[in-house]
């Protein structure tokens, strides 16, 4: 069905180009990534000099093309070819590619472009070409402040990904996570944020208090997280732009496991009291708190469906941790996980059709997905310890964290971020300057 969808988009997109041959199927593991050439964006000498002065980058054109190359490569769907083999100069290729030359090096698609300095701004145009059909598939131009140059590379990547796969990209996004340092028994944890590709890493807290589980608001640059400020574990709200923070609600005890509703207007979380944890929401506009579950068990890790009508959550009301789904008012609670083992951290896919989870079975931890009725369970990766999947905004990739087993002396502990495609292929370490855990993927920044 998705194949058909892709085809329809192709036809709608370029009616004159119905013979376009390139089509990347992202619904199965892609063992044969599409070879494509990312020609360095051409740049004139004066623009080069000006950008060098502002950004301290000798050739911003090739820097941007490297970002595009890296993004497309890490997606696992594309194989950017070695630039040394390119025969045509970037400026000429952008005007009119000699398709025989690109065909010769087996490129099926070609990306060209041009960067200019206009009124202290960065102007970028780029084109995507179908080499076999010898046609232009897409041409776009935009202007922005020079300091946005990395985002330009991500936006180009998203456009190319979308044009070739028929689905939105996920490159112009950020990851918020917990940066970890120090011995296992006395970890220092800070909130940190970075671009999806690991650049522009920035710490948001100083590490004076324990912080856990940051999550992005899907509609703004707000984050909700758990902080042990003054040794009182509470859910907080943080505005990344201004740095202002506030406690969410006035609960007489620990609040934790926060997430935003899909429209960003509510926070859903657990409140623990007298050995029971229940799920509550707080409306961020009128501050009204609502109790959603009421059961002597532990109810936690709530996550809304993208239409906001349902909530999946983790409960041990059956005796052990399992995944449940209910209506967003707390009615019609239904258990959906029935496989062997314990299930935790359910997270609803932004596409609505799947729930990602952590599973513990026979001493191993798995990241998996199941349909929202619990059928079709599929385990993507097995390890000594891993948990807390977070979806890319297009619902194609999961990021999670993994911890290592220590040796007999208790040494060798580390925590790292990893990503894996929904297909179970393309598992990758996401590099961070320190140890890292609890990742949360933002929505697309540009839309």
């Amino acid at each position: 069905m998705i194949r058909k969808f892709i085809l329809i988009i192709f036809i709608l997109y370029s009616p004159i180009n119905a013979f376009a041959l390139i089509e990347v199927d992202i619904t199965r593991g892609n063992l044969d990534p599409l070879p494509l050439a990312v020609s360095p964006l051409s740049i004139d000498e004066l623009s080069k000099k000006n950008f060098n002065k502002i950004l301290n980058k000798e050739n911003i054109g090739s820097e941007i093309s490297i970002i595009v190359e890296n993004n497309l490569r890490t997606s696992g769907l594309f194989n950017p070819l070695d630039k040394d083999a390119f025969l045509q100069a970037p400026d000429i290729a952008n005007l009119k590619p000699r398709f025989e030359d690109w065909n010769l090096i087996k490129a099926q698609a070609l990306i060209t472009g041009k960067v200019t300095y206009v009124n202290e701004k960065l102007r970028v145009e780029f084109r995507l070409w179908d080499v076999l059909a010898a046609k232009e598939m897409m041409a776009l131009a935009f202007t922005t402040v020079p300091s946005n140059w990395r985002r330009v590379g991500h936006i180009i990547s998203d456009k190319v990904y979308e044009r070739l796969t028929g689905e939105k990209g996920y490159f112009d996004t950020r990851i918020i996570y917990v940066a970890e340092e120090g011995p296992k028994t006395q970890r220092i944890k800070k909130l940190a944020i970075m671009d999806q590709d690991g650049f522009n890493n920035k710490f948001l807290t100083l590490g004076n208090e324990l912080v856990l589980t940051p999550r992005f608001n899907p509609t703004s640059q707000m984050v909700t997280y758990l902080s042990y400020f003054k040794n009182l574990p509470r859910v907080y709200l943080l505005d990344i732009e201004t740095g202002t923070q506030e406690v969410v609600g006035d609960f007489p005890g620990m609040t934790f496991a926060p997430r935003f509703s899909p429209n960003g207007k509510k926070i859903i979380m657990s409140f623990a009291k007298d050995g029971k944890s229940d799920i509550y929401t707080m409306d961020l506009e009128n501050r009204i708190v609502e109790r959603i579950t009421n059961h002597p068990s532990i109810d936690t890790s709530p996550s809304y469906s993208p239409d906001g009508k349902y909530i999946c959550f983790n409960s041990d009301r059956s005796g052990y941790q399992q995944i449940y789904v209910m209506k967003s008012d707390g009615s019609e609670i239904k258990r959906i996980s029935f496989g062997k083992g314990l299930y935790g951290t359910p997270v609803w896919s932004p596409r609505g059709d799947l729930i990602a989870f952590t599973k513990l079975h026979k001493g191993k931890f798995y990241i998996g997905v199941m349909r929202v009725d619990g059928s079709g369970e599929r385990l993507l990766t097995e390890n000594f310890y891993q948990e807390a999947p977070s979806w890319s905004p297009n619902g194609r990739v999961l990021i999670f964290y993994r911890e290592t087993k220590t040796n007999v002396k208790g040494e060798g502990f580390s925590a790292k971020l990893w990503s894996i495609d929904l297909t179970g292929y393309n598992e990758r370490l996401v590099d961070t300057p320190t140890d890292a855990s609890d990742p949360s993927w933002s929505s697309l920044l540009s839309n």
Partner: protein
Amino acid sequence: MKISKILNNTLLVLVTCILMTACASKKVETTGAEMQGDVYMGTDSVEYLAEGVKDRVFFATNESILTTASRETLRAQAAWLRKNSNINVVLEGHADERGTREYNLALGERRANAAKDYLMTYGISSDRISVLSYGKERPVDSGSNPLSWSKNRRSVTVKAN
């Protein structure tokens, strides 16, 4: 349901005792000697609130049931708290690393509350006891093995003032 769980647990402990006695002559140095079921019985990380008053109790995996040894420790704590009525305590609940972070926060809270409830039945006012869960964030033992995990599944009574 709870009673059957307790019975189950007692039975498990009994069975383990019998097993351990049976093998005692052979297996003196194994970790089994420090654990009953998978509840830690040793004194490795234990500190003392006062002479003879241990500061912590240990739990089985995924459980918050107090064992016989735990209840004994808590009765000693209650007796000491009754004598020192000016002292308030924080019960810090912990989980091992083999669980998801959010569930473990809830589990730590549940364990600390199990200890709190027991102190209250021995006459300590709830005003004097606060509860704080650390989930799996503050292990005492950084090992990745059953003995280390058993030391980390704990509720620790800490003086608040």
